């Protein structure tokens, strides 16, 4: 019995028991459904073992959307608790767990996979490649991310969630002040997912540098691909810091080392520094691909080429460098003194310059355009004003002396939500709507889509603008309650209303998917938006090999040139196509990683050692395996092509 006690929730509540039941029922339903419809084989062959970048992209997408709802449910609970003073909906412990998992889930398990989903689906198509450089590594990346996310999600019902904030500052997150296994989950779940992301970084860097279609020089890449290239450079430099940081945190928690403790020479400031050495570049990892999406969408629907291509590229490269030079702005108040703060204050505000250049370039892309407001365009047009508010408040936070007043308040919370929601979330929704027909061969409903965009756009303002004021009025972040006399009540009530609006918007997205699956016409063309880059030059949905003939490129808008200027994209005859084989090893290895992580969380050493051996065995298997892929014959290509040409 004692063995099982460790899995108990330290602070149970009816909500947690209800979720346990809900999780169990969902699992049973999934298993029963798969069995009843005899889909186990399909699931294994087509999805669990796939190495196809498009399918992996779609799996990332589904995970991201699921996590959006998980994180959104957290958010609604948080805002409901704060809607009125002295509310008793949640107690301090639950509130702390919920804002912690909200942050982790939204940033690491919603925004990151959403970005990687689009990266996966779009980049190989945009550069005219057949897959990524290391397809099997790609599958491993996904499954590691997935297992990391699942591990964190079960913390809620097994052993207790982390409760020290998504920043998990030590010594609070150390064993001195957090005894439950919650922070173990933090260290290990994010570690597993983070290794996956690091692999993605290596993979896409190689893919973009080595696998572009003939003629596509770096300066002829579509802007989304450029943004992904820069993002992955940041990933490759920033994520190793996270890996090391989490390893140190794990050692402190599991093996009683003293990196960050209050005693024996531990240094709590070291955690804060290393966290933000990764953390600040991380926020640019989130925003740059979003900028890439906006560049594609705005240029497509302004029916014009992107204004200032070169300065767009230059500003992203500059941002990637600067993003490593500003981390101290997250703790101007740690006592470094005026000189250090001054230096970091300047570098921080300097980042706003290249960011501003991008805003002006988008505005100038609209200039002399022929603007058509579709759903993706609507998100982009809402993004510009809302993100500007978020961005300029960033500059305000960068004024270090003034930041002593903003830091740790709702003002800061308002800032980062006003950059992340209009910046990243709108971009992902725009990208989702924009590339949806390429993924699935039908469009999402435009009417519902536009309604959704308006509701989400306005709700974002309603939810987050009041926080600028309550922050300046002294409301600290992460307080589970406040007294009536503070006068924060009305502002928080407005925020709650905005949060409900956002929830309505997200439910509408799900409804739109359902509605469009049922009613959307399937006889659309391969290029329904009249777009400009290569991904629109192949069929919808895209065949396994992407392009029957590798395209020839000589500008950043090769497909547009083909449509308007008679540029010939596909020269030559069909040839047999070399493709990678599917493999179950990435999935299997990630499952073992899950067992490894779970065992470590609960300090169960024997299964942990067994799992470690299992992981090494999978790696050894890969090293000695002889798998040279397979060929798709010319006849097969011809057959697929003629079938698809009939379809679209």
């Amino acid at each position, binding site marked *: 019995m004692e063995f099982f006690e460790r899995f108990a929730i330290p602070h149970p509540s009816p909500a947690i028991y209800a979720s346990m039941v809900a999780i169990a029922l969902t699992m049973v339903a999934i298993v029963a459904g798969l069995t009843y419809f005899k889909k186990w084989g399909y699931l294994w062959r087509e999805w669990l073992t796939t190495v196809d970048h498009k399918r992996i992209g779609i799996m990332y997408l589904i995970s991201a959307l699921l996590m959006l709802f998980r994180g959104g449910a957290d958010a609604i609970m948080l805002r409901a608790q704060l809607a009125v003073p002295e509310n008793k909906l949640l107690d*301090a412990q639950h509130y702390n767990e919920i804002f912690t998992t909200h942050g982790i889930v939204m940033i690491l398990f919603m925004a990151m996979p959403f970005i990687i989903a689009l990266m996966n689906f779009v980049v190989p198509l945009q550069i005219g490649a057949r897959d990524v450089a290391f397809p099997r590594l790609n599958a491993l990346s996904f499954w590691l991310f997935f297992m990391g996310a699942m591990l964190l999600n079960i913390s809620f019902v097994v052993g207790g969630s982390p409760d020290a904030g998504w920043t998990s500052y030590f010594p609070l997150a150390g064993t001195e002040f957090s005894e439950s296994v919650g922070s173990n989950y933090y260290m290990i779940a994010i570690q597993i997912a983070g290794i996956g992301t690091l692999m993605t970084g290596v993979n896409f860097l190689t893919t973009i540098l080595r696998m572009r279609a003939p003629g596509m020089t770096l300066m002829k890449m579509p802007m989304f691909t450029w943004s992904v290239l820069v993002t992955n450079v940041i990933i490759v430099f920033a994520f190793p810091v996270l890996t090391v940081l989490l390893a140190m945190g794990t050692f402190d928690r599991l093996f009683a080392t003293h990196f960050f403790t209050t005693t024996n020479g531990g240094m709590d400031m070291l955690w804060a520094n290393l966290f933000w050495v990764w953390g600040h570049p991380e926020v640019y990892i989130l925003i740059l691909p979003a900028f890439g999406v906006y560049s594609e969408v705005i240029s497509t629907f302004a029916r014009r080429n992107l204004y200032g291509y070169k300065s767009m590229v230059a500003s992203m490269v500059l941002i990637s460098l600067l993003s490593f030079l500003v981390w101290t702005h997250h703790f101007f108040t740690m*006592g470094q003194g005026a000189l250090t703060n001054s230096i970091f204050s300047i570098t921080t505000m300097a980042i706003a310059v290249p960011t501003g250049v991008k805003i002006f370039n988008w505005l100038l892309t609209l200039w002399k355009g022929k603007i058509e407001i579709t759903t993706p365009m609507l998100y982009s047009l809402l993004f510009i004003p809302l993100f500007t508010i978020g961005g300029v408040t960033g500059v305000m936070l960068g004024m270090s002396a003034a930041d*002593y007043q903003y830091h740790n308040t709702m003002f800061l919370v308002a800032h980062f939500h006003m950059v992340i929601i209009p910046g990243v979330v709108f971009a992902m929704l725009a990208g989702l709507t924009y590339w949806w027909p390429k993924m699935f061969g039908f469009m999402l409903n435009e009417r519902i889509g536009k309604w959704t965009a308006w509701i989400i756009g306005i709700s974002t303002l309603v939810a987050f603008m009041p926080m600028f004021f309550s922050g300046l*009025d002294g409301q*600290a972040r992460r*307080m589970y309650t406040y007294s009536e006399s503070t006068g924060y009540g009305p502002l928080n009530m407005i925020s709650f209303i905005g949060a409900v609006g956002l929830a309505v918007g997200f439910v509408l997205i799900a409804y739109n998917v359902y509605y469009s699956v049922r009613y959307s016409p399937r006889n659309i063309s391969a290029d329904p938006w009249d777009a400009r880059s290569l991904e629109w030059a192949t069929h919808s949905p895209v065949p396994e090999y992407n392009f029957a003939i590798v395209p020839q490129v000589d500008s950043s808008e090769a497909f547009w040139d083909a449509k308007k200027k008679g540029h010939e994209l596909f020269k030559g005859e069909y040839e047999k196509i070399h493709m990678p084989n599917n493999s179950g090893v990435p999935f299997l290895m990630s499952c073992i990683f899950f067992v490894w992580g779970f065992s470590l969380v609960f300090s169960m050493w024997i299964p942990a050692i067994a799992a470690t051996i299992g992981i090494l065995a999978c790696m050894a298997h890969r090293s000695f395996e002889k798998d040279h892929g397979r060929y798709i014959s010319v006849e097969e290509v011809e057959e697929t092509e003629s079938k698809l040409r009939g379809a679209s």
Partner: protein
Amino acid sequence: MKMKRAFLSVIFVLATVLAGCEPLMVLDPKGPQAERQAHDIMLSIGLMSIIVIVVFALLAFMLIKYRASKQSKDYEPPHIEGNIIVEAICVGIPILIVIFLSIVSVKSNYIVEAKPEGYGDKEPLVVYASSSNWKWHFSYPEENIETVNYLYIPTDRPLEFRLYSYGPITSFWIPQLGGQKYAMSDMITTLHLAADSPGEFMGRNANFSGKGFAENTFEVTAMPQAKFDEWVDEVKETAKPLTEEKFDELLEPGHLGRSTYTGTHLKFLPPPEGHHHGSGNSDEHSEDEHAEHQQSSESHKGSEHHSH
């Protein structure tokens, strides 16, 4: 049209918030440091509003002028690569703004990190403010008294807070007197404040520190020096001495009301003064303070003393 609706809703939110509200705490400063910060905040809000308005206006212009519905069917937008002059303006103006704000920011840094100006040669009142889960302990070494969860301070005199923590990182914050600073277990940070008028202010820990964080507040009362001295005398007559046992009891996690003692815990539990950070000119003080507390050196969990 829809843009306009969005716009109106923004203004509506702002208006409802601004009306029917007392001045926001941070923008209602009662001391020179907070005043400087409020000034920076208002200045940057002003400048940033200009940028926001320019962006909104450009966007509105583009949307009104270049909507497809406003143009002929066969209009083909031109191919425009970019223009050096336009781009130079887009880079140049933000650079000028950032340079200006940088100058302000650097100046302010040196102001808020130094002893407040304008109080002649008055010596600062030194207060050691330490946090433990989830309380604040205020030690007045010169007056030789200590309080829990409330702070009395004299007006018109520089205040120098030496901050440290018997637990997680906390952040000492009295919004109306000035911005916050971290209190940590392994070093002391220094925060310079001053109060210009008597009154009661909200003080709190602003940095999340676990379960009891929300209630981790303290009350600040500023009063003229004479009254402050009276209070000190009264404490010395009426309060009980702070013993080591009593202090250990106070450190236990939980919430406490106010309490007052003669003597300070600095005597038997020296703060982590070996690591001294925060600002330049406070080091002179720390020398003599240091010697004063050297006699007692019993170490205690949570206040390990590391030397460089």
